[in-house]
């Protein structure tokens, strides 16, 4: 996530979903009401304080009817706020009921990254491509603690509660790249659990979706290497005893039990899917199996990355 490019052209808080305008309208009405109230009250306070300051010769016989003014003031207050309540509640109910023809995307929140899976099985990590103008319903699930799917530009937020499926829906109305935040505290790297929502033209989106066999590039491999947690053990400076991966590709690797094997692509593939079968000599079999967590294209990207670590130029 370090290389997040600053998005220059979009304003600080774009209205990028059909909902955004309506939430903004409600919010600025409320801000308007607040400003008027603050001005009225501080005006009263400052006015009275100055006009009736000690030593000023003014008429001070008190005759204000107390309870009547209070009641009028309270009822007026209540009327304004009830109107706002109804408006907000209407928007809230609509916001929570996705249209049934919405494009369904599955999202899994895992400690400190977002995994998305589109209808045709295309997966992406920390990035969500969505078509313009099509209602999108994201089905949210979490694998560990409570996270919260928050896209400020769409004005939507929904917590991911472990044990249940939550849904959030929006209809993107503006092309661009927008922030995706995790809004509920979820541990060490809560502030780094950020991503991007990329709104594309529908045609462009279909093309992107179909392009499943995107070329595995070391860069994508590196991103997977960190998001899947490999870097936690195999990265430099990690406290966990795990075999270093730099420069091992193509070299012989001594295994526990005396065997030696060449670290080729199948060795790396097997070490990822079934690590306990080939434990490097001098190490404990603590590596978890990533079977079911990575699919073929992920594996190819990871292998390309590990190759790039040993100076072997991975396939372009």
């Amino acid at each position: 996530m370090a290389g997040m490019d600053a998005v220059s052209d979009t304003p600080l808080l774009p209205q990028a979903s059909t909902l955004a305008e309506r939430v903004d309208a409600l919010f600025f009405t409320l801000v308007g009401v607040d400003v008027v109230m603050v001005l009225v009250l501080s005006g009263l306070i400052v006015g009275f304080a100055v006009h009736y300051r000690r030593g000023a010769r003014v008429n001070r016989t008190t005759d204000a009817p107390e309870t009547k003014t209070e009641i009028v003031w309270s009822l007026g207050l209540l009327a304004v706020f009830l109107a706002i309540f109804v408006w907000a509640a209407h928007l809230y109910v609509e916001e929570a009921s996705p249209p049934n023809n919405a494009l369904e995307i599955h999202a899994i929140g895992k400690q400190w990254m977002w995994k998305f899976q589109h209808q045709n099985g295309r997966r992406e990590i920390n990035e969500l491509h969505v078509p313009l103008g099509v209602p999108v319903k994201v089905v949210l699930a979490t694998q560990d603690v409570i996270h919260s799917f928050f896209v400020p530009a769409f004005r939507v937020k929904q917590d991911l509660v472990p044990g249940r499926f939550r849904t959030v829906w929006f209809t993107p109305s503006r092309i661009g790249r927008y922030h995706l935040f995790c809004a509920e505290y979820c541990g060490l790297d809560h502030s780094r659990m950020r991503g991007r929502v990329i709104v594309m033209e529908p045609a462009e989106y279909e093309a992107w979706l179909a392009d499943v066999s995107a070329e595995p590039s070391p860069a994508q491999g590196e991103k997977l290497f960190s998001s899947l947690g490999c870097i936690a053990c195999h990265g430099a400076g990690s406290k966990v005893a795990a075999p270093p991966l730099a420069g091992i590709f193509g070299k012989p690797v001594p295994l526990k039990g005396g065997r030696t094997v060449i670290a080729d692509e199948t060795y790396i593939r097997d070490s990822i899917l079934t690590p306990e079968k080939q434990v490097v000599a001098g190490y404990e079999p603590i590596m978890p199996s990533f079977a079911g967590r990575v699919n073929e294209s992920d594996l190819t990207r990871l292998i390309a990355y590990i190759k790039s670590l040993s100076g072997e130029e991975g396939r372009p």
Partner: protein
Amino acid sequence: MDERTRRNHLLVWLLLLGLLGLNIASSFLDLGIFNPILTTAVAALQAFIIVTFFMSMRSAAPVPRIAAAAGFFWLLLMIGLTLTDYQTRFEDIALGRLASKPGWEAPAAGRVPNPLSESGYSPVSRPPTLAAAAPDAASGERVYASVCILCHARGVGGAPRTGDKAAWLKRSEQGVDTLVDHAVNGYKGMPPKGGHPELSEQDVRNAIGYMLYAAGIQSPRR
């Protein structure tokens, strides 16, 4: 200790034991939803008797009475308001009804499935160390979302599409156990366990349960 109060207290005590007997007896009858209601009501009656007679609330000043009542009232207030959340969690199905027709037919009225009951998720129970161990089997919905969706979402290779009630009804006639057996050992176009050997049989059973529920079949035959 005049004789009258002593006799009163003995009577109250016998009444309490009688109510206890009634409560236990009532649990032997199967009254469905009325069982918990009845037992709690009898318990509340016992509590009221203890408060008025044994805790001398009858003769106490008004303020302690208000304090006692406040304790119970606030408890009911807390439970009542929280239930407004739990009894109205119809998740997407009901919400679908709110805005427009739901995507799939809503399951039989009344018994809306509480997704909590199919919960289950997959962390390590003790706080994870840096090398977080791989989460173990996921719940039905999660297994579906990560594995079965590939084919069943759009009915690839003749697989029954999620939400297609007719296809799933025909298959549920054979009973869930046969469905699980087919899924685990592979059947026609479907690879064993959908190509994911690491799934346990319970996961496959959960996933099938989820697909049946998504197709609106509430209680398939065993």
